[in-house]
């Protein structure tokens, strides 16, 4: 299981096994303030990181940060 959340610390605290850091609470999987092509790139990075996280074995809740998300 992987959870994309804008509040990764909170997701980690409730015990989600794999947490991907999303953008903002109203739009975790992208950034509508960006031009469409850049938003698409961000969305790809977040979902890509989620798929990558699924491939990893974890023992404790772990936060994965998409490369360009900050």
């Amino acid at each position, binding site marked *: 299981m992987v959870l994309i959340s*804008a*509040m*990764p*610390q*909170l997701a980690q*605290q409730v015990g989600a096994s794999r947490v991907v850091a999303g953008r*903002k*609470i*109203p739009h975790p999987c992208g950034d509508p303030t960006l031009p469409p092509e850049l938003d698409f790139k961000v969305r790809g990075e977040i979902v890509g990181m989620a798929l990558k996280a699924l491939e990893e074995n974890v023992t404790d809740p772990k936060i994965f940060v998409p490369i360009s998300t900050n």
Partner: protein
Amino acid sequence: MRLELATFPVSQVTLDGSTRLEGRNLHVSREELSKLITADVRLSHAEVDVVEPGESVRVVHFCDAIEPRIKVQGPGECYPGLTGSVETVGAGCTHRLAGVSVALSAEYPVKGSGVGAAHEAVLEMSGPGAVSPLSQTINLVLSVKFASGFGQTEYHEALRAAGFKVARHLAQLTLDKEAEHVQLFELAPASGLPKVVYIHQLLTHVSLPVPYLFWYGRAITDWMPFWAHPNELLDGALLPNALGAYAAKPSSWEHVNHPVVQRLYEQHGKSLDFLGVIVHRTRFETFEEKQLSANQAAKLAQLMGAQGAIITWIGAGNAFIEGMLTAQALERMGIKTVFMTYEHGGKEGTESPLMFSVPEADAIVSLGSLDRRITLPPVDRAVGDMTLSIDREAGPERVSASGELKLDWFLPVASGLDHWGAGTQICTAY
């Protein structure tokens, strides 16, 4: 900054021919107030009713309640910013009518959705839902209908202005009269006592047509924490909107009768040194912004020399994170912190009470629960409307305003969340 607050208690409100104050009896002319309100073309009709504590009555479409206050000496005006003046308030002399409020009831025709929408709220004057301090005051209810052809922002502006206009009109009745008692509010030096700051967290949003919060009439958006003199709060510098005074939005009356501010003032110079208030806007949308605002609030507290802090918060979830992060930041600086919060816990009280926690938050005052169901029994009469819809987004069905209301949680009940410890709800461990 020295404020004299002169109190004129009201124990009876009588609707009759002319508006006047005779001792503790406030006489109100329906026609006069109605005319004042409908002078604004955006408001087509206004009814005036009186509801009293203990009465079997429900106010529906409850939007806000205002305590009549007026500045009689000193700079600025009460509830500043509404009519343009942003002169700093909190000094001089303010008159207030106590035990009475001007309550607003109106149903916004614009059916919005999400965080910017108007919320249905009911104010109960008796029974299990009478948990508000306004269930203990006589409320002069203005039931207002909107004229057609305007939008939500205009309706809101008109309704809110009407409420404050009526409140001011009533407060003016005290001008030539002598107050029953006068309280002095001043943060005089109190050296040697523990220095305590109050961190007043309030949620709002970055950009909404109608802001959640106003500071001197200006919309608080993504502001970082700032310092406020408690007297500014007593003069109404910090106010909510009038889009529905549901459980997550204390009314204007509650803002100027703030129990934490009152209690800290009472103890100032006796058991503590009250340093003032840090107003902390919350509900940021990224963790980093939440952390930043928490750090900034703690930094201000440290610069003020605080040894202790009380945090309260408002909201239903999101803004809770700032509360916890602020408690953590303060404790790490060595500032002892008490966090006041309601609990979740689910319908049976068996689920996790807090959605997020930090180990540093080791002193928490519980203010009751949001999640429990509540049934409001039928009432003899409803004021504001014949019918209502608790959740307007759920569909067009409406129920009788005076009938039994089975609520899934406390959110639609005025002051259903006791954010500041004003109400009567308690938690029991058993």
